[in-house]
């Protein structure tokens, strides 16, 4: 089982490396959106500082949603998914591996880039540290929740719109808590409660989403 998990992660990373354009699209989107706001809003430091956490979090959320349909679509198209469904290893485990690999290529870069991009908003040093921390806790949750949506909308024609409708309401708590935590830190308060709640959402989604996504994949593959 662990071996299957490891191979599945390795496989998805290998595929992402051989086709970097897919991954880079979402990252470029994130950089562009975050960088355009200061240009559009104007160079008012206080305003920029206020909107920074929200803008960066919303951009990260949209960027991770942009890459969601890719999670299972290619495997579905070439028949690899059928073979995964017939695997002697539990499908939930394979889904976990796919979410982890997906996060490594499309979530982790967002986390790492966020402090650099936040510099454009003249964010103070202590909230500069809080931002990647909230994203580190929050983006995997987006991946786990997104996996359910991606699995449910697999093979549908207008899957993009439907996927956003399904997934966005579930993303909202993560967004509120994530951006809220950075706001708290910026205001000089402790964001402990927010961190714990985001972590709780992560644990919850990691525990249940793989099985839900696995069930959805079996339905979509019929």
């Amino acid at each position, binding site marked *: *089982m662990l*071996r*299957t998990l490891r*191979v*599945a992660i*390795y*496989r998805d990373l*290998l*595929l992402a490396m*051989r*086709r970097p354009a897919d991954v880079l699209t979402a990252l470029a989107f994130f950089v562009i959106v975050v960088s355009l706001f200061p240009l559009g809003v104007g160079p008012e430091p206080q305003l920029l500082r206020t909107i920074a956490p929200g803008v960066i979090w919303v951009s990260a959320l949209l960027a991770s949603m942009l890459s969601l349909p890719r999670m299972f679509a290619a495997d579905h198209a*070439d*028949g*690899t998914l*059928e*073979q*995964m*469904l*017939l*695997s*002697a*290893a*539990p499908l939930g485990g*394979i889904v976990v591996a796919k979410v982890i690999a997906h996060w490594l290529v499309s979530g982790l870069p967002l986390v790492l880039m966020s402090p650099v991009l936040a510099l454009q908003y003249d964010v103070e040093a202590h909230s500069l540290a809080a931002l990647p921390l909230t994203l580190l806790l929050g983006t995997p949750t987006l991946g786990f929740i997104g996996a359910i949506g991606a699995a449910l909308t697999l093979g549908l024609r207008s899957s993009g719109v439907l996927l956003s409708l399904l997934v966005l309401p579930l993303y909202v708590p993560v967004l509120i808590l994530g951006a809220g935590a950075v706001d708290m830190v910026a205001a000089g308060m402790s964001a402990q409660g927010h961190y714990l709640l985001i972590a709780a959402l992560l644990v919850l989604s990691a525990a249940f989403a793989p099985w839900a996504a696995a069930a959805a994949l079996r339905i979509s*593959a*019929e």
Partner: protein
Amino acid sequence: MLELREVTCIRGERTLFSDLSFSIEGSTVLRVGGANGTGKTSLLRIICGLMLPAHGEVHWQGESIRTVREEYWKDLVYVGHLNAVKDDLTAAENLGIGAALAGRSADSAEVFAALDMFGIAQCAPLPARVLSQGQRRRVALARVVTCKASPLWVLDEPFTALDAAAVELMRQLIEAHVNAGGSAILTTHQEVPLTVPVQRRVDLGTC
């Protein structure tokens, strides 16, 4: 071993086949015949557990495949219409990673031997993108060699896109597998003669 009990398949509004029952023991080849659109692929997908029948059940070793699940899939190799070959992976990676994802293990020597058997050893380091349709089919079929231990082979049109030599090889592989006690279920429009102890036929569209 494998038993279908009154299986009915409905796609959309159309009933493809209803109350289909049969069972096969070891050392058996079952050919699924019928014209295009009579539900051959659907039947194979139901047998694999990829699709749920509208009514009826599929049993493996006396237990419903819906309860044994992974235990059943350990015993099953399915080669479908889609080759399950990733364009960006090499032929060898496709086979090795495919086996690992299926919960089996195939080391590089086994993978190479399987590719060699299908005459595509020289393609092992090439990305599947550059392979021809027939070569990709060979990579997909080479999976049955790395999963030799599985007693039930379910092959959907195994002989399409293959040249005469590969058809002959596939024929020998199926014969060897069945003569060693395994069973194979296949759909084919080509009448490839097989010398095996028990050979049965289900024709869809007539039942």
